[in-house]
Every structure is written in structure tokens, then in C-alpha cells.
């Protein structure tokens, strides 16, 4: 039905038509007409006022990762829009669908360096999947429709729509969102069927392999191909590693799981990757954090790469069999061509590596000191074996979470893998919690990263988001300190932290909180958080510790630094 509406109304009506029920933002001059129109739509779309626009883009990201739907954030021109950028770059690196709406100065002032003008299309160009500058009311509806289409199809990603203020204030006759057709001649979206010849080649390679390994990435989850992945693994008895973002696509508790690999992945996983003869990457982009030095990664392997993005083929590694297409469709056509096999020797070899890793596992060592792996494992137990969504920040705690929380549920770990954005956890968890409604959502952050965005505790309180927050407080920028320990002769330049009292901080926002520094109190604190209606914060005070294994940057994954055997002194490298 066509109607006469203002540009500002088009924005809200388009969002509602796209199924958006919540959006995150902050008003300002150039987006004011849109905020003014919000009152008309408030019963259909819930607006969450953020403390800082970085929070808005991370919230949209967390919402999108947790639900699989497009997250939406809104900001004003200039500084507001620029504050969104950290979150957009984070989403772009990790293929997260977001639509960002930003206000822009009126067309008459474009290019005049007027108040709060910044070239947002230019700034966001390399960190979005696509972007629009709308200077004409006729283009507004189509731009938003295309933005959603591009964000959610193919390899998902963030799309920004910059709308000049005058367009928001212009009346348009004959607006009919449903009638708008997406016209993108240069964009091939999703559901691409792979070439049957490539599938057949892949099947042959897999069937001939003696030491195969699957590397499952987030693409598996985006394509909803978890079940097919599992059938493939079980049919041919192929061990499954994941990338960091692939965690959750294959149950870590499955006998064929070899956890995840790379710089701080499990040692046995890295051994398997280095020794395999065929590596089957599914929806994983094989980035340097996973591969270590490109030339020395999986040196004995021929690589089959399933990905929807043709540009990922051969970007980092030489690929034997590229299979471009949607992971679900590709796996479906591959499966009938896969022979049932067992690979007993290979699986036994991997078991041996696993036993070796377990021997030096920190959890196997008797120590009274509270440590992050212990906290993570306790949380796993207390969430009925991982029935919760964990949102991490960036640093050591992030690696420990990924190592010790045995994820079995899809989309149950939200983490900034590609960009490694500190400050991600709290706002992303707010977004995730708002998308997941009453499901259990936990934040796991370091004391450094938490402070980057803890101002969003205001949003937690205001929206009464029942998110449970843990801070692993080691009074250091831990991950950086670890590198200084190992590579810079313990010169702690810029890493010791003088922290506030986190319990008091939480209480100042009206959020109940508790400090824990002993192993025996961990369970009780987690239970208290779970039993509390609404948000709760636990500060865990821990001594510093190292994450192992550790592959030095730019080195081969064969050159892992491992935790010392228990009988040897553990405090020296």
C-alpha cells in the first residue's frame, strides 16, 4: 500500500518491515528527525539508548551473532558515526550482519566542513561490506532494503546507510516498501551451488586420504550446516578441529573433536593439522592466527576449501581443490560420495597427543591459586555442561574460555576473533541477551578490556538486562604481559593496571556484585549470579598466568611453546 510519509518514517517502517524488533543507538542533530519520528513506532520497535556509539555497534553485533538475524545500530553524523566504526570493523572481520543507520549533514552543507560533518561513506568504506550515502528521498527505501539484503545474504557483513538530514525531513508520496525491488546486478548472493566437478574432486581426495582433518569455521554455522558436518565426520571418521569462530559448530565433547587450533589452540590439534595429509576447510578463512606462518602450515596436506567467498580461495594458502558455494549445499552433495572408513592408526595417534596434552594441563595440577581455566570449567559445569551463551572480551581469558568451556551448542561463544576488539564483551552481551530474551548469557572479560566499555553498565541497568558478568582481574593487560614475559625479557611496559574496585563500580550502577579470590568460593558466586533476578557481576581476582600453548607470531605451528611438565619449575620460560 503506498502512502505519503517523511524520510524519517521510511527509516522506521523499513526496519520494521525487515523484522527488526530492537535497535541500539544515540541521537544527535543530524539524526534528530528520525528520533523525533520514533514515538510513532515505539510499540513495534524497541530502541536501546547506549552510553557510547561503540556500544551500539557491538550490541548490534552481539544480537546478530546470537540470533542469526541482522543487528541494527543508529548514530548521528560525525563523531557519533565515527564511534560506530570499531564495531563495524569487528563485524566485517567476523562476517556479522549489521545495518548501521547514520545521520549526515543536509545536502546543502555536504563538503562544506560544516558542524559535525565527516565523510562517513569514505571512513566506513574499507570496513563494511557495502555502504550508501542517501541524498535523495527516492533512494532511501531502496538503500535500506538493499542494505538488509546485502548484510544477510552470501557472506554476511555490516552495511552502513548514511542519510542526510534533509532527506529525513522530506515528504515522499507513494512510498511502498514491499513494492521496492532489490536491483543489484553486480551482487551474487547466497545459496550458490558448487560445481559438481569440484565436489567430485573433493570427495576423491577425502576418500583417498589416510590422515584427514576437518577445519570447521563460522561459515558452517552461517549456512546451518552443523548436522551435515557431523555426518561427514562420523561417516569417514575424520577428526574435527574448528577455528576460534567455528567453536560451537561441532560439539567439543564429541570423540572426533580435536578442539581448535592455532596460536593458542590445543597442542594436539596443531599436531594433527601439521601432520594431516588432507585438510578439509569448511567455511573457515584460514587466517594467520589459525595457520601460523603460511608456508609451514599443514605441510603434508592437500587442502580442500569449501567457502562461499571465491576471494578466500588461495588468499593465504595454496588450495588443491577449491569448492565455492554455500556450505550446506556443498556438504549435502558431497556426502553421498564419501565412503565410510575408520582411520584407526590416525585416530590413535591423535589420542596419544591428547594424553600428552592432558598431562601438562593446568587443571591437572594441584594449586590453591584461583585461575581462569578453573573458573571457566566451573562455569561450564554450572550451566549444565554449557547451556549458556558466553561472550568474551579479548586477551588471555578469551583463549582460556575457548579452551576450557566445552562448547556444544551452536552460536554459544560470541567473540571478536578477526579484529580482536577489546571492549567487545559487555555491549555484545547486552545485544545477545536482548535477542535471546531469557536464555543465560555470560560476559567473560579481562580487567583491561572490561574498562573500555563498562560505561554500558548504565544500559544494563536501564534496560534491566539479566546478563551475568565475570571479570578475570589479574591487574594486568594479561595477554600483552605474557608476550613481554616471553619475548621482551619481562619488561612490563604499559601493562600493569591500577584498577578501581569493580564491586563498587557495579554497585554504583545499581548492579549487585561480589568479589571472589578463592577456588572454594567460585561455585557459590556463580550460583548467586544465576539465582539473582537481573544482572550480576563477579570480580575474580587471580594471579598472572600464561596461556599455553603459544605459537610466536610469524612462526610455524610446529614451534609451539608448551606448558612446562609439572615436575619442572613452572615459573620460568
Amino acid at each position, binding site marked *: 500500500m503506498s502512502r505519503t510519509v517523511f524520510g524519517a518514517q521510511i527509516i522506521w517502517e523499513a526496519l520494521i518491515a525487515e523484522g527488526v524488533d530492537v535497535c541500539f543507538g544515540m541521537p544527535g542533530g543530524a539524526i534528530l528527525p528520525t528520533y523525533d519520528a520514533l514515538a510513532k513506532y515505539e510499540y513495534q520497535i524497541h530502541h536501546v539508548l547506549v552510553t557510547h556509539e561503540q556500544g551500539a555497534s557491538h550490541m548490534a553485533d552481539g544480537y546478530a551473532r546470537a540470533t542469526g538475524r541482522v543487528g541494527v545500530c543508529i548514530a548521528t553524523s560525525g563523531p557519533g558515526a565515527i564511534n560506530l566504526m570499531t564495531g563495524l570493523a569487528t563485524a566485517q572481520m567476523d562476517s556479522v550482519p549489521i545495518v548501521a543507520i547514520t545521520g549526515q549533514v543536509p545536502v546543502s552543507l555536504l563538503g562544506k566542513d560544516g558542524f559535525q560533518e565527516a565523510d562517513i561513506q*569514505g571512513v566506513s*568504506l574499507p570496513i563494511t561490506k557495502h555502504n550508501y*550515502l542517501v541524498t535523495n528521498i527516492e533512494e532511501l527505501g531502496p538503500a535500506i532494503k538493499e542494505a538488509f539484503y546485502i548484510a544477510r545474504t552470501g557472506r554476511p557483513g555490516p552495511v552502513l546507510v548514511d542519510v542526510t538530514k534533509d532527506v529525513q525531513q522530506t515528504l515522499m508520496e507513494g512510498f511502498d516498501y514491499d513494492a521496492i525491488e532489490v536491483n543489484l546486478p*553486480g*551482487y*551474487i548472493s547466497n545459496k550458490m551451488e558448487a*560445481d559438481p566437478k569440484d565436489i567430485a574432486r573433493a570427495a576423491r581426495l577425502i576418500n583417498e586420504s589416510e590422515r584427514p582433518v576437518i577445519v570447521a569455521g563460522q561459515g558452517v554455522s552461517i549456512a546451518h550446516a552443523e548436522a551435515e558436518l557431523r555426518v561427514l565426520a562420523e561417516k569417514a571418521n575424520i577428526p574435527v578441529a574448528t577455528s576460534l569462530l567455528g567453536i560451537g559448530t561441532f560439539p567439543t565433547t564429541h570423540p572426533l573433536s580435536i578442539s581448535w587450533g592455532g596460536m593458542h589452540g590445543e597442542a594436539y590439534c596443531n599436531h594433527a593439522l601439521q601432520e594431516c595429509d588432507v585438510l578439509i576447510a569448511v567455511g573457515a578463512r584460514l587466517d594467520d592466527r589459525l595457520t601460523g606462518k603460511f608456508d609451514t602450515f599443514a605441510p603434508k596436506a592437500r587442502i580442500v576449501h569449501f567457502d562461499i567467498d571465491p*576471494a578466500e580461495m*588461495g*588468499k593465504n594458502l595454496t588450495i588443491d581443490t577449491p569448492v565455492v558455494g554455500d556450505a550446506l549445499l556443498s556438504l549435502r552433495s558431497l556426502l553421498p560420495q564419501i565412503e565410510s572408513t575408520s582411520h584407526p592408526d590416525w585416530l590413535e595417534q591423535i589420542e596419544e597427543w591428547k594424553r600428552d596434552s592432558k598431562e601438562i594441563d593446568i587443571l591437572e595440577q594441584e594449586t590453591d591459586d584461583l585461575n581462569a581455566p578453573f573458573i571457566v570449567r566451573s562455569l561450564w559445569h554450572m550451566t549444565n555442561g554449557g547451556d549458556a551463551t558466553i561472550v568474551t572480551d579479548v586477551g588471555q581469558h578469551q583463549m582460556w574460555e575457548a579452551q576450557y568451556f566445552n562448547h556444544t551448542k551452536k552460536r554459544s561463544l560470541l567473540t571478536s576473533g578477526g579484529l580482536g576488539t577489546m571492549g567487545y564483551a559487555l555491549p555484545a552481551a547486552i545485544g545477545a541477551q536482548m535477542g535471546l530474551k531469557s536464555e543465560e548469557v555470560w560476559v567473560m572479560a579481562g580487567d583491561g578490556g572490561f574498562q573500555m566499555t563498562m560505561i554500558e553498565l548504565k544500559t544494563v541497568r536501564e534496560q534491566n538486562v539479566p546478563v551475568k558478568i565475570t571479570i578475570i582481574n589479574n591487574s594486568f593487560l594479561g595477554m600483552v604481559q605474557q608476550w613481554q614475559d616471553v619475548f621482551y625479557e619481562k619488561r612490563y611496559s604499559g601493562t600493569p593496571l591500577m584498577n578501581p574496585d569493580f564491586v563498587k563500580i557495579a554497585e554504583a550502577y545499581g548492579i549487585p556484585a561480589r568479589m571472589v579470590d578463592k577456588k572454594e568460593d567460585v561455585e557459590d558466586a556463580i550460583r548467586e549470579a544465576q539465582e539473582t533476578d537481573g544482572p550480576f557481576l563477579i570480580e575474580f581476582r587471580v594471579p598472572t598466568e600464561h596461556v599455553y600453548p603459544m605459537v610466536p607470531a610469524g612462526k610455524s605451528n610446529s614451534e609451539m611453546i608448551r606448558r612446562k611438565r609439572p615436575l619442572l619449575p613452572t615459573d620460568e620460560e
Partner: protein
Amino acid sequence: MKFNSKHTIIAWMEDKPGVLNRVAGLFRRRNFNIESLTVGHSETPGISRMTFVASGSQRELSQIQTQLDKLINITRIQDVTDEPALVRELALIKVEATGENRHEVVQMAELHRAEIVDVTIDSLVVQIVGREDRVNALVENLRHFGIIEMVRTGAVAMTRSRLKTVEEFGSNGTNQ
């Protein structure tokens, strides 16, 4: 395959504001080695056509095309390096031409099948249209007289045959 080679690639794109910025930004960000780039209208209204010459290894050249193809506004890409194609460049070269050597410059231009398009008391402007090596040869020879100013367009290309259809590209074509 590590050895570098030079490729001539055509890309078609929607004629929208900022498209060239996207292309240039991509080349810069991904550190692609682009030797020349020329853009103008195509036969289809709303679609611009760009010819660019890039060099790199096989893998780099494939990256250039697949990454470029990901830009939403790029509608099609074709590498014409191994196709029968017309590749042309235009150059205007302003050469010192005083009394004594004026005749020699004219002769040199003629030998290269170039044209004199402007004459002043002490200079001539030579125009040449041709493949890059022909333009290079002329420029080399004119240096001898003293080049005052030069402008080159970079290559534009067109295949001799009719364009291939998408099916003919096959799955390894870049235009997916």
C-alpha cells in the same frame, strides 16, 4: 607459480558516485600492483567500463579479480590477456622542435605512424594511438629531441570475438 606476469583486465561497473573510490581503495588496501587504469562509458547506459593492467603472480592476479568482483557495484570482470584482443593506449607528447630538428621530429612521428596534432614556434605535439610497446618505442626515440611534457591514458582493451557468455567461462572463471 611464483613468476610475475602482466595482465590486462576489463571490469564493468555500475555508474554510481564513489565507485571509482571503492576500486582504488581496494587496490590500495590489498596492496595490489596496478600499472594503469582507465575508465569511461560503455555501450550500456549506467554501466562504466574500466580497463586496468596489473602485475603479479597467478595467485595475486586471481585475488585482484575475486576481491574486485566482491565489490557490490562491479557487475563483471574479464581477463583478456590470453584472448585475441585490441589493446590501445593514447599518448600526447610535446617535443622540443626548433628550426633544425623540426623536420626530424616530424619524420620520426611518421615512421611511428603517429600524428602531429599541434605546432608552435619551438615545439610539436605528437599523438600516438597503439599498443603500449609501440608508444614506448616512440617515446624512447623522441627523448632524443627533448620531451617537454607527456600524457598517457593507460590501456583500453576490447576482445575481437563476441564476449563469452557466463556458461563459457566455466566454474574457474572469475566472474561468478
